[in-house]
C-alpha cells in the first residue's frame, strides 16, 4: 500500500469518525435534555400538587417558621428549590427567586387553582392553591437546566433518571460503524490513489526514455478529472514522442542528405588534383582534410542516429563481451605502439551479454582509443572487464584507465553530451567531433547499461562502462 493511499484512507476514516462522533453526541445530548424535562416533570408535578395543599395548611396553622421547618425537611434533588408565594406575589420565606420565577408567579393570578402550569423553557412548575379560608398561594418548583458539564454529575447523582445509558450492545455498534467506515474509506482511498499511482509510473517511464509509454486504460475509463488528467498526459506523451522522433529523424535525414554532395565534392576534389599540378596542391590538401573531417562527422552523426533508432537491437545476439573488449584492446595496442604506449587487458569472470555486438564494439573502441590518445608517452592504458553481482542481476563492468592529464573537474559531466568539446589549453581539437563519447553513452543506455567518467585520485582518467550480464 502506498503512502498516498494510506494518507487518504486515514483522513477519510478520521473524517467519518469525527462527523459520526459529533452527530452521536448531539443527538444524545438533545435526547437526554428532553428526557430530563419529562422525567423531572413527572417526578415533581404530582408532588407539587401535594406540597401546595400541605404547605398552605401549615402556613395557616404554624406560620412561616413552621413552613420553613417543613420545607427544610424535604429531600430535594440538588439545585431544586421549592418556593411559596402569597397573594401579593411575595415569597413567604423571604427568599429571592430568579426573575423568570417571579414573572411566572405574576402571570398566575388568573390561572385556575389546582392545575399545575409548566414552563419547560425555564424549567419551572407552578400551581395556584386556595386554602380552606380562601387565601390564594402559588407554590413553585424550580429546577436548574443541566449544562453539558453538569450532565455527568446529574447522571451520577440520579441514575434512575438516566436509565438508558450506553451498554455492551452500543459498544458493539460503535465497533461495527468503525469497521464499515474503515472498509468504505479504504476502497474510496484506493479509488483515488490508484490512478495517481498509474500516472506516476507512466511519467517515470517517459523520464526513462520509454517514450511510447501511455497511461493505463483503467485510468482513462473513469469519468472524472483523473481520467481527463490521464488523457492530457497521453497527449503530452504523444507530443514528446513526436518531437523526439522528429529530432532524431532530422539528424539522420540531414546526415544522409549531406552524404551525397560530400561524395560528389570528394570526387571533384580528386579530379581537381588530377588536372592541376603541384602549385595548388597545398590548398587541395586542406580541402581534402576538411572534407575528411566532414566525412567523419557525418559518419558519427549517422552512427548516433542508428543507435537512437534501435534497429540493431531488433535482432540482438548473445556474445562474450570479453572477446570484444580484448579485440578492441589488441587493436588499440597497434595504435598505442606509435607513442611507445601499451594497452593492458585483464578480465575476471566471463561476461556474456545480449545486444548488438558491432554497436557495442564501436562504443568500447571510442573509449579505448580516446584513452590511447590522451595517455602520456611510455605509459599504459589499463582496460579491465569484471563481472559483479548486483541487485537485479549480474553486471559487466568495463573500466578504461589512462595515465594522461585527465579532464578539468567541471568538464567531466559534459564529456558525454554531444558536441561538448573539452578544451585543452583553452583550445578545442579540430580532429575531435565531440560525438564519440556521446555515442558510447547512448549505446550503453539502449543496452540497459550506463557510462560514467571521473579523474582518478592518483592521476589519469577513468571511464567506467556497465552492462547487464547474463546468468
Amino acid at each position, binding site marked *: 500500500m502506498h503512502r498516498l493511499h494510506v494518507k487518504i484512507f486515514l483522513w477519510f476514516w478520521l473524517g467519518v469518525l469525527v462527523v459520526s462522533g459529533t452527530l452521536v453526541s448531539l443527538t444524545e445530548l438533545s435526547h437526554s435534555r428532553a428526557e430530563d424535562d419529562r422525567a423531572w416533570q413527572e417526578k415533581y408535578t404530582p408532588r407539587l400538587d401535594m406540597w401546595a395543599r400541605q404547605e398552605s395548611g401549615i402556613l395557616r396553622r404554624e406560620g412561616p417558621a413552621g413552613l420553613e421547618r417543613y420545607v427544610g425537611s424535604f429531600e430535594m434533588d440538588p439545585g431544586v428549590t421549592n418556593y411559596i408565594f402569597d397573594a401579593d406575589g411575595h415569597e413567604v420565606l423571604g427568599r429571592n427567586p430568579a426573575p423568570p420565577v417571579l414573572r411566572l408567579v405574576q402571570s398566575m393570578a388568573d390561572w385556575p387553582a389546582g392545575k399545575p402550569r409548566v414552563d419547560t423553557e425555564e424549567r419551572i412548575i407552578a400551581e395556584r392553591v386556595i386554602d380552606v379560608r380562601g387565601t390564594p398561594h402559588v407554590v413553585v418548583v424550580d429546577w436548574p437546566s443541566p449544562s453539558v458539564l453538569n450532565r455527568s454529575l446529574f447522571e451520577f447523582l440520579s441514575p434512575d433518571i438516566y436509565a438508558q445509558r450506553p451498554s455492551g450492545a452500543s459498544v458493539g455498534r460503535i465497533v461495527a460503524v468503525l469497521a464499515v467506515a474503515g472498509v468504505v474509506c479504504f476502497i474510496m482511498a484506493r479509488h483515488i490513489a490508484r490512478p495517481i499511482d498509474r500516472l506516476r509510473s507512466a511519467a517515470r517511464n517517459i523520464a526513462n526514455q520509454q517514450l511510447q509509454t501511455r497511461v493505463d486504460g483503467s485510468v482513462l475509463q473513469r469519468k472524472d478529472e483523473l481520467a481527463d488528467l490521464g488523457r492530457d498526459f497521453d497527449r503530452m506523451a504523444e507530443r514528446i514522442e513526436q518531437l523526439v522522433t522528429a529530432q532524431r529523424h532530422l539528424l539522420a535525414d540531414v*546526415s*544522409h542528405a549531406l*552524404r*551525397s554532395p*560530400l*561524395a*560528389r*565534392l*570528394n*570526387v*571533384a*576534389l*580528386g*579530379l581537381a588534383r*588530377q588536372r592541376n599540378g603541384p602549385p595548388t596542391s597545398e590548398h587541395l590538401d586542406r580541402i*581534402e582534410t576538411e*572534407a*575528411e573531417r*566532414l*566525412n567523419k562527422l*557525418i*559518419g*558519427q*552523426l*549517422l*552512427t*548516433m*542516429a*542508428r543507435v537512437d533508432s534501435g534497429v*540493431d537491437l531488433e535482432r540482438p545476439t548473445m556474445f562474450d563481451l570479453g*572477446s570484444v573488449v*580484448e*579485440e578492441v*584492446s*589488441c*587493436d*588499440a*595496442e*597497434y*595504435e598505442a605502439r606509435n607513442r611507445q604506449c601499451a594497452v593492458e587487458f585483464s578480465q575476471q569472470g566471463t561476461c556474456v551479454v545480449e545486444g*548488438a555486438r*558491432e*554497436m557495442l*564494439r*564501436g562504443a568500447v*573502441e571510442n573509449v579505448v*582509443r580516446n584513452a590511447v590518445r590522451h595517455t602520456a608517452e611510455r605509459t599504459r592504458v589499463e582496460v579491465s572487464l569484471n563481472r559483479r553481482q548486483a541487485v537485479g542481476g549480474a553486471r559487466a563492468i568495463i573500466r578504461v584507465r589512462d595515465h594522461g592529464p585527465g579532464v578539468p573537474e567541471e568538464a567531466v559531466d559534459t564529456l558525454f553530451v554531444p558536441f561538448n568539446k573539452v578544451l585543452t589549453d583553452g583550445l578545442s581539437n579540430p580532429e575531435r567531433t565531440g560525438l564519440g563519447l556521446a555515442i558510447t553513452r547512448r549505446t550503453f543506455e539502449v543496452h540497459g547499461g550506463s557510462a560514467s567518467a571521473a579523474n582518478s585520485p592518483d592521476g589519469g582518467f577513468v571511464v567506467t562502462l556497465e552492462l547487464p550480464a547474463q546468468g
Partner: protein
Amino acid sequence: MPTVPAGSPELRVLVVDDDTELCQLLSEYLATEGYAVECVHTGRRGVERALDGDHAIVVLDVMLPDLKGFEVLRRVRAESRQPILMLTARGDEQDRILGLEMGADDYLAKPFNPRELSARIDAILRRSRPDASLDRRAGDRLAVGDVTVDKGARVARRGPDLLDLTTVEFDLLDILLRGAGRVIPRDELVQSVLRREFSPFDRSIDTHVSNLRRKLGPAPDGSERIKGVRGIGYQYALHERPAPHER
C-alpha cells in the same frame, strides 16, 4: 596504375548508383585512371548488366531506389563470381559486415576519397586477374591435408569438392596454406590479400577469415582449420602432423 588502355574488357567498371551527378564525376575521374566506366542508376538494371559479364568489376551502392544494394549483391552472387565493391553508408558497421558476408570483395564507406576507390578497384582487379607469368609455373599447386589450391587456374578444392570462394577468400586461403602451421599477422594478411595499408580497427580481414572458415568447414578430425591468435593474426592448423602447440 594499370597501363592497359581504356576500353580493354578487364578495365571496364560498372557503377551502380542512383546519384547521376556522382556517376558522371566518377566516370571522369576513373577514366583518367585508365578505366572505362558504365553507370546504371537502378538495382534491376545493375543486376542485368553485372550478369552480362562485360565488366571487370562492379561498384555497387547500398542505397538504391528500387532494389537494395544487398539484394543486387545476392542476385549477382547467385550466378557469378564477378568482383564487387560495395559502397556502404558511413557509420553503418552492420552493412559493411553484411556486405562482406554476402560475398562482396571489399567495401568503401561513402562519402569516400576517389583515390581510395581507385586503389581498391586496382587491388581487387590485380587479385582476380590471373597473372600468367607468375602463376602458370609448376609447383603452383599446393596441397595441405585434404585442401588443394591451384593458383594458375584459381581453383580450390576440399577433397574432390570444388570450393566456391571469392577472390579475396582464395588469396587468403592461399597465403594461409603457404604458411601453414605458422601464425600470420593480421597486418601481413591485410597488406597481401586486401592490398591496402593495415588499419588496426578495420575488421574486414576478420570477416573474410570467418567466411572462409565457414566455406572450408571443420577439419576431418572436427577441429577448426583456421585458428585465431588474438592480437596477432591467424594460423592454418596442420592436422596430419599436429603442431607442437595448438593455440
